[in-house]
């Protein structure tokens, strides 16, 4: 059955010619036709290019050639510039933007033979934790609560990526993570997601939100699939000044290392007073699983944790206000004209940006403005140093940290809080690793009492994704998460 394949098993089946790339791609395109009118995980579909690429892949596979991802159907978050294919960042300001160049991450995936089925929905400019801020409509999480048909959010910002993978529309997807945008939707949709070390994947051609935090990573059904994708996506790129020149290891080979003798830190500040019991119980279960596999559990303290979110919002919004200044209606993007150049800018940006993006640009402009810069922005940068030190000090004692990914499971569209600060709290467990620049991943570990997935998060040392893959795989094996969402390509309607 086509929709039982993982990325890894599809790769093996393609090589053995048990299935052709054309069959695999057609089956997934058909599933998108069937389900995505409802899920809305794609902004732009590229079926014709995908079929052409599948034919070419079959020719290579027939000769025993082709890269590590030859013939594998993927979805690309619509934040990655794709040459000749519309790239919107889920914003009306880029409604008709067709990049004349390719992002490095997607170029790497293409080089290795991956086939894009299209561009996936996200929160506008990756700003959100629900995928409801997209100018192209929200995404429906393929999971349902037991006995309820309420539409749940897939999380965000990589909500389209998470929903498409969970529903079996693609075998993997690219995501980007600025404060949790890979890990939180992965947790909400019952899939695996990896935010690598800052600098591991090139940012070239990825539409910028907060440049000191943005990092691309893989989202897929399991960590083996993520490992295969990350090996392709990662690597030094001279076109990104923050790209780090370091060899890319064989991540897949790290999966079976186990955790025997490893030290896993449990950050006590993450056990907040209002942590739901179910989340705490799952966390304890994760601790027990790692212990059984031979890891030593160590209590650690990350004393500045509670300042992570406010620090993140100041840093990210300041960078966003600066990055998004480029959307001026002059060189590319939508334009609303006016009697003067300033009037054109103001009208263009008023019409082109959605509410959340405007709010963030305004706040970012405020914290950078004269008279407030030291009080907000500079102070936040200093607290960020303290947050990073928390991690570095913990890593003197432990090899990695285990924590929940998110403080809840997926909630319904109409349960999204109206207070922006309440929405921001979704990222409480993911933001600190982003600020520190360290790698982290989320794996599905169980279902809550309502039947929606919950993830566990592992946070590691700089460039030590391999340890996270090894420990994450231990959690995967112990959790044996084999549940499927209600809306899935393999279930006939």
């Amino acid at each position, binding site marked *: 059955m086509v929709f039982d394949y993982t990325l890894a098993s599809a790769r093996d089946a393609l090589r053995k010619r048990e299935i052709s790339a054309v069959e695999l791609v057609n089956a997934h395109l058909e599933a998108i036709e069937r389900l995505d009118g409802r899920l809305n995980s794609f902004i732009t579909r590229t079926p014709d290019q995908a079929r052409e690429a599948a034919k070419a892949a079959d020719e290579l596979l027939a000769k025993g050639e082709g890269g590590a991802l030859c013939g594998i159907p993927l979805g690309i978050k619509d934040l990655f510039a794709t040459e000749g294919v519309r790239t919107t960042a889920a914003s009306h300001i880029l409604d008709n933007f067709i990049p*004349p160049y390719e992002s490095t991450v997607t170029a790497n995936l293409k080089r290795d033979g991956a086939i894009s089925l299209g561009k996936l929905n996200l929160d506008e400019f990756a700003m959100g934790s629900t995928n409801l801020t997209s100018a192209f409509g929200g995404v429906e999480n393929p999971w349902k609560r037991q006995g309820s048909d309420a539409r749940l959010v897939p999380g965000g910002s990589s909500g389209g990526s998470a929903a498409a993978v969970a529903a079996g529309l693609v075998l993997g997807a690219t995501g980007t993570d600025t404060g949790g945008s890979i890990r939180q939707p992965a947790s909400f949709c019952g899939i695996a997601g990896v935010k690598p070390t800052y*600098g591991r994947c090139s940012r070239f051609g990825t539409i910028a939100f907060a440049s000191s935090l943005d990092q691309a990573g893989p989202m897929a059904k399991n960590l083996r699939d993520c490992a295969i994708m990350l090996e392709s996506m990662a690597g030094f790129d001279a076109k990104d000044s923050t790209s780090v020149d370091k060899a890319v290891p064989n991540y897949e080979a790290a999966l079976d290392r186990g955790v025997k003798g490893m030290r896993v830190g449990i950050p006590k500040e993450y056990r907040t007073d209002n942590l739901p019991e179910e989340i705490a119980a799952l966390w304890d279960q994760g601790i027990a699983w790692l212990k059984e596999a031979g890891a030593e559990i160590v209590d650690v303290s990350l004393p500045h944790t509670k300042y992570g979110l406010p620090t993140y919002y100041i840093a990210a919004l300041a960078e966003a206000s600066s990055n998004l200044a480029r959307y001026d209606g002059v060189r590319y993007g939508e334009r609303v004209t006016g009697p003067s*150049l300033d*009037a054109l800018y103001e009208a263009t940006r008023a019409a082109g940006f959605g509410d959340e993006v405007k709010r963030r640009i305004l706040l970012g402009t405020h914290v950078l403005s004269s008279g407030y810069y030291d009080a907000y922005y500079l102070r936040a940068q200093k607290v960020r140093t303290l947050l990073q030190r928390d991690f570095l000090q913990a890593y003197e004692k432990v090899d990695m940290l285990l924590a929940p990914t998110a403080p809840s499971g997926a909630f319904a569209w109409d349960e999204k809080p109206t207070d922006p600060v309440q929405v921001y709290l979704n990222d409480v467990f993911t933001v600190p690793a982003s600020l520190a620049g360290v790698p982290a991943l989320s794996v599905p570990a169980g279902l809550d009492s309502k039947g929606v997935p919950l993830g566990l998060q592992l946070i590691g040392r700089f460039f030590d994704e391999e340890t996270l893959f090894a420990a994450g795989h231990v959690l995967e094996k112990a959790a044996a998460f084999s549940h499927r969402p209600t809306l899935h390509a393999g279930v006939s309607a």
Partner: protein
Amino acid sequence: MSLDAKKVARIARLARIGLSDDEVQTYQKDMEGIIDWVEQLNEVDITDVPPMVGTGLATARLRDDVVTDGERRDDVLSNAPEREGPFFTVPKVVE
């Protein structure tokens, strides 16, 4: 710290985002809430702590001073909302 309507309108002007009076009111409320919430950073002792301007994992690199890309005028102009020949156009700036 209070963020009055006048201040919000000024920030919007700096950010070149046109806002109606009603929108100024709405954003003022939201922004005030968020600013109040971030004020908790004032509790943190940051004496002698340097600001973190990046993760510091990448080192600055030099490269040869040669052209690595270029001759792509049509590509650069391909998404222009309005153009005249090989130029981007804007409303008259100088009378």
